[in-house]
């Protein structure tokens, strides 16, 4: 049973990353109509920024949790201003191709300087150790990742669904021209949205650094799983992304316990099943 709970926890952690990443993808897709293939590479950059902060500037985990998403978010906004914005009005596919190219560039550069092996990033002192819950040993850092990710996801949901800023955002998604006529700077909002989505990816990167080490290709496979998550959940609903992300992480964890050979593929198999039963994805709207 210990092993089952441990895998369940690993599943929840992966689910946190899936949720943060698919949430960012959904937010970006809503505003920019672009599937951000560079999301995995930017997730990796988040982890690397945290690594640099610690090893070059001696800035620890807690400030990195705020600084890294901002740095990567600004980098993302520069990408949006200089490149992505020129794709407005073109076929969706060009956005996918451009961001795929960006992912190749970013990952290639990091691989050149850091190879393919993992760099260690230690757990902050405050979160070291664990507690024995009676039925399992719970490492504090892992519990922290799950809880913190959940809080960030819910805050993002609140920001988009319940605030005035979010209302403007949703309105601009539906009809940018009309929203512009109301005097709202839609292009700036698009840039900030991209920054927000990318920042969420970077945050997931920082959170994962102490668990999965810091590797140039850490995001390359994750992004494909997240695509499958997005196909399963649909990008129509923020809450849908969050729930699907966590749920699929847990299912993956359970598979690791009951049938480890399929743990790599279970999310993709589920995607196939969902497409056969409900092609529009679990949360509905057709694209």
């Amino acid at each position, binding site marked *: 049973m210990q092993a089952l709970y441990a895998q369940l926890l690993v599943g929840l952690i992966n689910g946190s990353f899936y949720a943060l990443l698919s949430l960012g993808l959904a937010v970006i897709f809503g505003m920019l109509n672009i599937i951000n293939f560079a999301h995995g590479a930017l997730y990796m950059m988040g982890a690397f920024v945290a690594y640099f902060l610690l090893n070059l500037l001696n800035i620890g985990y807690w400030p990195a949790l705020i600084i890294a998403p901002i740095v990567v978010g600004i980098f993302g906004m520069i990408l949006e201003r200089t490149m992505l914005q020129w794709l407005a009005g*073109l076929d969706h596919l*060009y956005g996918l*191709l*451009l961001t795929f190219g960006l992912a*190749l560039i970013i990952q290639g550069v990091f691989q050149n300087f850091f190879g393919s092996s993992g760099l260690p990033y230690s757990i902050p002192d405050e979160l070291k150790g664990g507690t024995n819950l009676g039925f399992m040993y719970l490492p504090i850092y892992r519990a922290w990742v799950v809880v913190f990710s959940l809080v960030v996801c819910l805050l993002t949901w609140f920001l988009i669904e319940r605030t005035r800023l979010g209302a403007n955002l949703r309105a601009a998604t539906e009809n940018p021209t009309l929203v512009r006529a109301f005097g709202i700077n839609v292009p700036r909002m698009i840039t900030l949205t991209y920054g927000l989505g990318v920042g969420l990816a970077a945050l997931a990167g920082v959170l994962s650094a102490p668990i999965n080490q810091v590797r140039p290709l850490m995001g390359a496979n994750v992004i494909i799983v997240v695509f499958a998550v997005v196909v399963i959940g649909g990008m129509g609903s923020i809450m849908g992304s969050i729930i699907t992300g966590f749920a699929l992480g847990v299912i993956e964890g359970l598979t690791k316990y009951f049938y480890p*050979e399929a743990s790599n*593929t279970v999310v*993709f198999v589920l995607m196939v099943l969902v497409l*056969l039963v409900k092609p529009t994805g679990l949360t509905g709207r057709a694209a």
Partner: protein
Amino acid sequence: MTVMTDDSIPVTPRAIHDEMIAFAIMTVLLAIVPLTGIYPFFVMQALCFALLACAFNLLIGYGGLLSFGHAMFLGTGGYVAAHALKVWGFPPELGILAGTAAAAVLGIITGFVAIRRQGIYFAMITLALSQLLYFIYLQTPFTHGEDGIQGIPQGYLFGFLNLSNATILYYVVLAVFLFGFLVIFRTINSPFGEVLKAIRENEPRAISLGYKTDQYKFIAFILSGTLAGLAGALKVFVAQNASLTDVEVDMSGLIVLMTLVGGLGTVFGPVVGAFIIVGMQQYLSGLGQWVTVIQGTVFVVCVLTFRRGIIGEIAHYLRRSL
């Protein structure tokens, strides 16, 4: 699907005439390669990728469907052909047939799932399916995991053509490439191809005209997958191995890049693109991971400034369809 097709030139008898002339030039150029002293291995490899890119282009250029998982057909065709040749002792022609048939079956299965969604979702689904297949091939014993299937016998095609002779192999590869190319050429100039283009331009209208668009897309997907599998089976004779790199996401990206550089939706663009990208990989292979960076840069530059691709730009300049 509107932007990709601006300035698209209607297929008229004259346009087909232009394409026929271009086809003749291409065939002659490729036929004299062994006389020129160009390294034949490079050209053979490029031809396999050219066939692959043409098959991919059939979907994106004429059906408006971006498959980001075409490596799964390349890899499946390759693995099955390699296994049939090496373990089952099939003669070359049956090995190629086995690999191609396996890709066709895969096309039926994956196409059934993938065509349920359009546009961007289609791309993500095909990508996820190919990743699923990657993990399957990584774990099943017959592919030999990281090592791949190596030392594949080339054998005698139809019992008398010695494929270990580079010149003979070259002309066999060329013949298979031309066969695949003509199948695609015939398809896009057929009534079926016209309906496919109509779906790309405006799917709801095609539906309202009574076309069962899902069936057309399904058939196009299977055809494209089958021909990509043929390219994979053919590549086994050139490279004499079948490995996981052919099933990886990077390979799917490379296929997209070849077609994009040459020109999406042009008849000859994928061929030109394949030669450029394979050549680039060959000459830059000493640069290690910088090749990835350069490929990414080509992607970005093409999407931002050069969306018609090389052949697309030439065709646009000449006001011809190529």
